[in-house]
């Protein structure tokens, strides 16, 4: 067993177990922190797969950005300090059965399929190569992604920062025009 295998199994166990903690934990804050370990473990996986840039992006965007957003979301959608942040779980048995069947099917398909293998070598993955692809083959998605991010920012700010009208503040029912 070489180092690659040891690191793989170590982090595979970390990823799957923290993902399970995230799903089954009753406390949503614990779930968010378990998700952090899952995402960080996945960054290690990307590094193992020669995807260094994706690994760094994963850490920056997911662990540094999305997770903080989620924690803010948890805090802002909770009443006061003393409410216990607990959440309901419904249809556990049928859902678990369904998810289990999906997992078994996927794994069966993955294992039995004869994949066409054309492994990358470590030297193929350079930042220069990625940047060149981004500015040639992937030019359009790259630009569209920029516009998408701008739209998302504007949309999020508009939705989150909208003040309630005077009518709504008094607790009366607002008319439809006010909502729009």
């Amino acid at each position, binding site marked *: 067993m070489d180092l690659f295998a040891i690191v793989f199994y170590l982090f595979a166990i970390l990823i799957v177990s923290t993902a399970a903690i995230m799903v089954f934990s009753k406390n949503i804050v614990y779930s968010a922190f378990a998700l952090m370990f899952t995402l960080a473990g996945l960054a290690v996986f990307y590094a193992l797969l020669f995807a260094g840039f994706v690994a760094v*992006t994963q850490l920056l965007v997911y662990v540094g950005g999305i997770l903080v*957003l989620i924690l803010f979301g948890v805090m802002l959608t909770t009443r006061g300090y003393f409410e216990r942040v607990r959440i309901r779980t419904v249809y556990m048995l049928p859902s678990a059965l369904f998810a289990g069947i999906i997992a078994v099917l996927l794994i069966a398909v993955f294992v039995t399929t004869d994949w066409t293998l054309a492994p990358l070598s470590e030297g193929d993955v350079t930042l220069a190569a990625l940047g060149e692809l981004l500015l040639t083959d992937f030019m359009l*998605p790259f630009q569209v992604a920029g516009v998408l991010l701008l739209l*998302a920012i504007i949309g999020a700010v508009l939705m989150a920062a909208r003040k309630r009208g005077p009518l709504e503040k008094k607790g009366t029912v607002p008319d439809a025009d006010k909502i729009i």
Partner: protein
Amino acid sequence: MVLPDWLAEPGLNHFLVVGALLFSLGLLAVMTRRNLIMVLMGIELILNAANLNLVAFSRYGALALDGHLFALFVIIIAAAEAAVALAIALAIYNRFGTVDVEQLSDLRE
């Protein structure tokens, strides 16, 4: 420690299996949890499972560097999705006072 060959050397299938497990766990979170934020976290898990598969195919399969770029675009879209979804969750909480998705069946107050 002596392991059989298919265990001792992690290859494409090993990463795909981890991806499949992550996907089904994310699916489980989306289906069983009734908190909007929790459903969002399940979606993030599913997106990450897809990302892991893309990068794994990029490394072992015939996808060359395209998988890395797909993964990067998925991360970008996930960031946009998380920002908008949390803004929606916040607006819903301000209006209805709850983020329990089963109580959000009204289109207006």
